């Protein structure tokens, strides 16, 4: 974990409500795909956790959805502005579990962390299959980016306006070696029930600190213990997940 100052490099809208933000700073604490950073925004008390979408030297890409006060403020930041960022947070995706034909499943704003994962897996020579699920065609983003990595891409939309009509589970391929997924909890539950292999699931929860101190984001696991989504998570393995109703 590292606390340092980042500078806004550039920012653009990917859809009506999804933004791509590039920050420049010390990314040395980020060790694997699926980790997140925690942004301190002027005038807001708690930091805002956002998953790492891509990393190139000092350039950190975050893709986020505008949902509340913090993300509205973030979307208005201009190139050159600075903000304190805690980097290298969380236990991300382990690419050693991938096998030869990993399947990546992302839903909506759960898509971003899969990008750095796909890039890493492609660099390791894997055949990477990707399913990206959205509500409707106008909400789709990053399809070209995944294709440019050489991934086998399938899009699903709930209303059928792009790709296969239905949820991500409507587009499962016949063969895959391991599943990596991130998205809204109902989607994660559906993926959990549908897949035939092991899986790495990334969860989202309201956090206090983001580094394991406050116990704000704990969840129970099948072993009877607990994990902190910010510290031992956000990625949990399929066999340890205990769904709470």
């Amino acid at each position, binding site marked *: 974990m590292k606390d340092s100052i980042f500078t806004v490099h550039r920012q653009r809208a990917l859809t009506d409500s999804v933004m791509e933000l590039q920050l420049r700073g010390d990314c040395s604490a980020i060790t694997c795909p699926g980790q997140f950073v925690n942004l301190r925004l002027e005038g*807001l*008390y708690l930091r805002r956790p956002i998953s790492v979408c891509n990393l190139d030297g000092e350039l950190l890409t975050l893709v986020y959805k505008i949902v509340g006060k913090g993300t509205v403020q973030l979307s208005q930041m201009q190139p050159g502005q600075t903000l304190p960022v805690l980097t290298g947070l969380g236990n991300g995706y382990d690419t050693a579990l991938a096998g030869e034909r990993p399947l990546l499943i992302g839903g909506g704003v759960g898509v971003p962390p899969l990008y750095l994962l796909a890039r890493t897996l492609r660099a390791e020579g894997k055949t990477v299959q990707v399913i990206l699920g959205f509500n409707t065609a106008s909400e789709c983003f990053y399809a070209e980016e995944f294709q440019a990595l050489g991934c086998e891409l399938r899009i699903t939309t709930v209303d059928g306006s792009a790709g296969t009509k239905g949820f991500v589970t409507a587009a499962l391929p016949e063969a895959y070696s391991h599943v990596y997924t991130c998205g809204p909890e109902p989607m994660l539950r559906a993926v959990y029930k549908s897949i035939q292999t092991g899986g790495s699931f990334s969860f989202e929860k309201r956090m*206090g600190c983001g580094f394991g101190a406050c*116990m704000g984001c*704990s969840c129970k696991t099948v072993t009877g213990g607990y994990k902190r989504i910010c510290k031992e998570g956000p990625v949990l393995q399929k066999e340890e997940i205990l769904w*709470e109703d």
Partner: protein
Amino acid sequence: MGRLSVALCGIELDNPVIPASGTFGYGWEFAELYDINILGSFSFKGTTREPRFGNPTPRIADCTAGMLNAVGLQNPGVDRVIDTELPKLAKCFQKPVMANVSGFSLEDYAYTCARLDKEPQVGWLEVNVSCPNVHGGGMSFGTDPAAAAGVVRAVKAVTTKPVIIKLTPNVTDIVAVAKACEQAGADGVSLINTLLGMRIDLKTRKPILANTMGGFSGPAVFPVALRMVWQVSHAVEIPVVGMGGVSSAEDVLEMLMAGATAVEVGAANLVDPFACRNIIQSLPETMDRYGIERIRDIISENRR
């Protein structure tokens, strides 16, 4: 004794800065960030007789100049704390630690404190009386002077270590509770615990916290906390540990001027994991600015 040192219930601290319970775990995880021996001490995660998972999530809500938490005393239970957490802490912290204890009955408090009394690392027992009394209709021990005094007597009977009672601000008269604790034999009081609050999500029209209500802390509560520290420290003779929204060296000095002997830092640790280190490092220059030679000199000035 150094320029920053203070004495709390007979134990000398290198400086008055103590991370508050629930914001610093059992310490050892923060030792990866910096040498935590620079701290005066720290108060470890509220510990109960049995392990507790705590409340359902969401447990956290952001607020203007503060936050709400309804963690619900998640902890591994006193046996695991003694077997696992304290040995890990011993490797990275060589000073007396403040053991924060919670309970839901007098028996709980006595059991947990008796176990921790045997631990040489424990310098003080900080007893949180904000929890509901399961045998008393669920009302918090700390809201009734007689019930709080009962906890003090139950704990004092099982330990020779200094007992500091952590008081809730959610009362009509915190001075009455503090006086009752002093008369029952408490060695000190710490205040304030969090203020009861809530937030509602405009989109769902429901409370943000799964527990509906939670404890409010952060810079917004500082003036309320300072006022209560002032009132209590003018009414009792025992040491007062001040806390509530402390985020800077200036806040520490203000708390000491209000009568606190030492100061706990809570929510600030969750926004900035280096908050306590930064406060300690900036204390000398801040003292210079206000003409303070030794920090302990300002504590008693305003106490009766």
